[in-house]
């Protein structure tokens, strides 16, 4: 992947998002405090927001160039986006949401994971016939994730896709994301507040603060093991008679 972002400017409520970066890793992490501008950056790359200045190109294809008045519409960018809040289609059931891109796509698809495959990995089997309104928070997140994967994008933008999942499922999905990265060679931009996720998945991480990239480097360099103990659910063996 070669995502070039040059002299980007996007005014936000309290500050201006400014970025100049060439991203070439398979998985790039975006890290930063609440309100740092991570979501806004993803939306600008996806073509959902128009910057006031700057240039964005992906593998040589110009996506946005304010100077030359180029603004490729989102549907022509081939960029999958998993928004923070899911933004599922409430008038369709889970299956309808997942297969949406297959029904509407006009641009040719890349080799993509199959419907069955995505359903299996994301544990969506029992949900395919369910209405969106009756899903739990984590279930919604997984559906939004699967929907974007099935669009066979050239680049995946993931906005905290694992935030409301339990550790087990999260680990499972992380290993799946690694396979997507390696098998399907779909590059990704991943927003997360979880340093462990970053270390497990990202080659490189950008740290944003009030709209600027303040640090950048390989995940292994930016993050260090914490001295604070990290907890997981203990195996219930010691209290065998319970439940």
């Amino acid at each position, binding site marked *: 992947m070669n995502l070039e972002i040059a002299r980007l400017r996007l005014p936000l409520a309290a500050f201006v998002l400014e970025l100049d970066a060439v991203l070439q890793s398979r998985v790039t992490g975006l890290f930063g405090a609440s309100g740092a501008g991570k979501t806004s950056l993803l939306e600008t790359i996806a073509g959902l927001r128009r910057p006031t200045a700057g240039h964005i190109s992906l593998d040589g294809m110009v996506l946005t160039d304010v100077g030359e008045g180029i603004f490729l519409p989102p*549907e022509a960018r081939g960029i999958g986006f998993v928004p923070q809040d899911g933004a599922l289609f409430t008038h369709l059931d889970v299956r309808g949401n997942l297969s949406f891109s297959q029904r*509407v796509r006009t641009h040719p698809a890349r080799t993509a994971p199959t419907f069955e495959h995505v359903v299996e990995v994301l544990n969506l089997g029992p949900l395919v016939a369910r209405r969106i309104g009756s899903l739990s928070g984590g279930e919604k997140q997984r559906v939004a994730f699967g929907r974007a994967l099935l669009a066979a994008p050239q680049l995946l933008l993931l906005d905290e896709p694992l935030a409301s999942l339990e550790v087990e499922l999260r680990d499972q999905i992380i290993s799946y994301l690694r396979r997507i990265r390696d098998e399907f060679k779909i590059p990704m931009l991943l927003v997360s507040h979880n340093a462990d996720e970053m270390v497990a998945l990202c080659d490189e991480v950008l740290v944003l603060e009030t709209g600027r990239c303040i640090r950048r480097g390989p995940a292994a360099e930016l993050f260090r093991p914490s001295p604070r103990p990290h907890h997981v659910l203990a195996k219930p063996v010691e209290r065998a008679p319970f439940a």
Partner: protein
Amino acid sequence: MSPDAWQVTWFTAWVAVTSTLCILPPGLALAWLLARRNWPGKSIVETLVALPLVIPPVATGLILLKLFGRHGFIGRWLEETLGVEVVFTWKAVVLATAVMSFPLLVRTARVAFENVNPRVEHVARTLGAGPWRVFWTITLPLARSGVIAGAVLAFARALGEFGATVMVAGFIPGKTETLSLSIYHLVQLGRDGEALGLLAVSVALAFGAVWFSERMLRKAVA
């Protein structure tokens, strides 16, 4: 019911359905433009759309007569190029009811479109759907309750329209006679009993439309 009354009922239902179907495409397009775009003169267009509601039906009828009449701007053009005569035919009935119910559809559909979350439309575009497909697969289904309500209002108005219709289409038994015209006529003659009978038919048609719309809604949700 007499065969005559049946014929009038069919004609009325047919007119109401046709005029509702005719105004759906332009009505929804305009509603969408009003809901989703900002353009100069928007308030003016909104007022223009509401006009058939604001001015008395006879006046609307008179304006239509002047436009579509043989000497009228549009009427002459239609007659010369297509050989179509509108005034005093069933076409005039459809025209009058369509114009009178247009504002109801547009306003109601507009509210529904405004309530669709643009974020959801945005996400649909990242999934490969162009603006046109997004409208059909996302916006319209999410706005369906309002669109259906608007269509039902338009249909009901079409059933009840009288003033403009009688002006451009006249009251020609067997040709431009709708339930509403018949009822008016019977009321004038003091034959309230018969008028009441036809009223019941009108109401039944309206009830059918409401019932059908509820079913469509429920199906769409399920």
